[in-house]
């Protein structure tokens, strides 16, 4: 029993001291809160004017203090938080954005070279006018050529630049406040979308849809009894000249020859058939065939875009 008592005392002392020992041990090896990274400008004719960070689990963009812009072939040391950085975004005096994704800032000196390989080629387009995010995803079937914005501290005119936002890609607009602002998107043909009222919110992804462009086109419709379906032309600079609807057995249930009144970009046609269709086929003015076996899950409209074009596995004609 005495031995047990001795053991438990020893245990008690040990357990009491151990956490302090562990903490002391860790304090010798803990990393600093910040570290320095060299940013080298390897761009030929642009100066880097701003650097922002997007840290994991943080909703706001973190600006990095820069005393001066970084001219070509020169470098500066910047202080960044120690640890993993989701994205470092660099803006140049020409308004072009470059980025370095998934960067681990450690105590080991590191250099980030800003060069053409770091350019924002697509996917996500960051446009920085503040630190609060507004994300908009292009869910349309067309390339977005320009974006006009209106709101606090936002510049007039197009903020996108040459490189379009393609279907599935996103615009990430960083603004100064959570006050609402308005966005208008312009497609390749110059058609304007409905105005989108948005406000900074890290948990929201706004979606630009085909429906926001429909007002640019004409809506043709019939009013017969039966199942109603709407077909929309969401192909830039292209007209649809025929529409065919197949039933479940693959038979033609309806055919419209639209050669005289083609469906232009953003035009729609609403018509009725006896049963829900199994396939809707359209032909464009070049004779190319597009098909869809189901409507858009949100709008319920058969939105024909470039990706609806039929893949053709057959050998070239005449062989």
């Amino acid at each position: 029993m005495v031995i047990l008592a001795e053991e438990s005392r020893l245990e008690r002392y040990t357990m009491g001291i151990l956490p302090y020992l562990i903490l002391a041990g860790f304090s010798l090896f803990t990393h600093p809160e910040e570290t320095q990274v060299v940013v080298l400008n390897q761009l030929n004719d642009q100066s880097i004017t701003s650097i922002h960070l997007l840290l994991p689990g943080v909703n706001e963009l973190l600006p990095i203090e820069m005393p001066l812009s970084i001219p070509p072939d020169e470098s500066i040391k910047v202080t960044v938080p120690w640890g993993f950085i989701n994205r470092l975004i660099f803006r140049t005096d020409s308004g072009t954005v470059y980025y370095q994704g998934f960067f681990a800032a450690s105590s080991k000196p590191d250099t980030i070279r800003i060069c053409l390989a770091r350019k924002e080629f697509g996917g996500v387009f960051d446009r920085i006018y503040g630190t609060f995010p507004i994300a908009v995803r292009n869910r349309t079937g067309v390339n977005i050529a320009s974006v006009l914005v209106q709101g606090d501290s936002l510049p007039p005119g197009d903020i996108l630049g040459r490189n379009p936002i393609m279907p599935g890609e996103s615009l990430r607009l960083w603004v100064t406040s959570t006050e609402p602002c308005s966005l208008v998107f312009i497609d390749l043909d110059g058609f304007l979308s409905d105005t989108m009222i948005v406000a900074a919110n890290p948990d929201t992804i706004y979606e630009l849809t085909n429906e926001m462009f429909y007002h640019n086109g004409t809506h043709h419709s019939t009013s017969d009894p039966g199942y109603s379906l709407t077909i929309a032309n969401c192909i830039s600079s292209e007209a649809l000249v025929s529409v065919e609807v197949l039933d479940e057995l693959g038979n033609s249930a309806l055919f419209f020859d639209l050669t005289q009144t083609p469906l232009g970009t953003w035009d729609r046609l609403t018509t009725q058939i006896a049963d829900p269709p199994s396939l809707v086929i359209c032909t464009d003015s070049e004779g190319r065939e597009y098909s869809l076996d189901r409507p858009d899950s949100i709008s319920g409209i058969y939105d024909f875009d470039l990706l609806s074009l039929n893949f053709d596995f057959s050998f070239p004609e005449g062989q």
Partner: protein
Amino acid sequence: MLDWMSPLSFFQSVLRVAIIWLAFYGSGQLVRHRLGLDKAFPLMPAELTGLITFVLLTVPLSFLGILNRIVCPVLMLVFSLPGLLMVYARFRDSRTLRKPDALQILFGLVFVLVLILNFTYASMPNIAFDDPLITYAVQPDRWLNSGRIFWLEETVFSGFPLFYEMTAVWPASMASNSLNQLSLLQVFQMSLLLLATLRSMSILQVNKRFWLPVLSVVLLTTSLYNWCSLAKTDTMALFFSTLAIACAIQQQSKGFTGSPFTSWFVMGLALATKQTALIMLIPFTLYSIKSYLSYSRNIKILAIALLIVVPGLYGIRTMIMTGSPTYPFYSVSRMLDDDWVLHHPEEQKLFNDRSSLIHESKAFPLLKQVGIFFGHMEGNILLLAAGFLFALGRRDWRDAALAIPLLVAFGAAIAVFWPPWWGYKYSILLYPFSGVLGAKLIDSSKNGLTVISVILALSIGIPGFVAVAGDGQPFARRLLVASSVLRGKWDSSTGYSVMPSSPENSTQLWANSALPENSTILSLHEEKRYFFNGRVIVGWRHPISQDLYLDNTIEDEMSILNELGVDYVGFYRSNPLLLDQENRLRMLDSIGVGSILEPVIIIEDYLLCRVHSHQDATP
């Protein structure tokens, strides 16, 4: 039901490939008897004679411009009829086979299961793997489209060797569309593996009771299951080299008195099929050297001439076009015309060097690398090891010595194709023969059948359920493939995914429908070109476009694009090129509406851009 994955597609592919072999067999028998080839090439199987006949036939058909999808299948069908009658006659004559015992029935059932597993897998068009879609399936396809064999300017792979491509024209011609064409070529490859093993056992006179288990062991090998179901040259090189070595051994056996030319000519066909078949020259030479030294001077010269004649013809053609007979690999640089000199971008060289730092995570220790090499051989190395031990056990040094040339070849293959985690694939040519030779060395033993049964069980059990050296194909997946093909629907509930396509394939298919005919796409990095009916030039591969990856001005780049007639440029939007090569391609700084590269479509991040001339582009 998917039109490319259905019982009907599967049976059609198998039936069409059977027609091809019947045509080869029928024509081969006729040619052998008419031309008296039995004497010159006594060990050459009839179907191989027929295959060579059909390859020769491609030349006049090409000159006449009728090497197409009408004439070729008609010829196949016509020649398959005598083939069918001859096979039927042989079957009728051999009906007096004795009744199989229970073990043979079991072997038979296993073999049928293995056949179903392998051939259903082969019948699924593989549109994920690059090589066939870069060149091997492309050339037969393009030749059939134009009715003639021609030098495909957009790829450096138009030269030596081309025996596979000229053979592949025949199965390809039976296809109903480009997807089905891949299926047929793949099933044809698997049939080559089957025939290589079967015929080499026949040539070496391996005990017939061993045939089914040995065939099962070979076909079950994971690497062969994977590589021999691809529409590429490997299986044909395997077919020729396996037969050549089997013939070489048989030709030096005591009872053999015929002409020794078969092995030399067939080895030449292997070299005319794939450059890496050179590794098979090591065992071939070691097996042939003794009998070769005993030949008369004329026979020696003739044997060497037969070895080099077919690869030599391709070499001459390639030399006429490029200056070097072995272009694009191992080119004789002094002979090479300036236009064809290749300057691969440094980043690409670094990536392609599998022992470079870029592949540091796979820099295993030597012992593990050797283990990986032999692990890939699965049942084949077990058969060889068992045969070797049996020969040692019965103190038959002559038989035991037969394994030594293979051991030398293994060592050479490890060294030449270092590191083995990557280079093992070039050694698959050695696998079936290793298994067959092992069976040959076992077959005089009393316990041979027991040993082979155990090896067969291990060949099913270990790679199928436990572990495998490379990319695993566990039995659960193999069965899933077979059942999915036979049901016509992929069962996704198992967690295994169907072979994915790639965005560049989809983009090419889209481009077929959307772009003007005869458009030219420059692909900055991805190499596939099969599905596009126009031209796809792979930037870093082509001698002219490789200059794009140097530090040029935008004017220089545009002049290269003009020279090549490029209309569109394709690349992954988020990461156009390997490492930081983007820095040297100025055109990537000009992507946009009205810019030099104007985005047209994006499919799963793969972007296709229309090229505007520098003058037309908006600054």
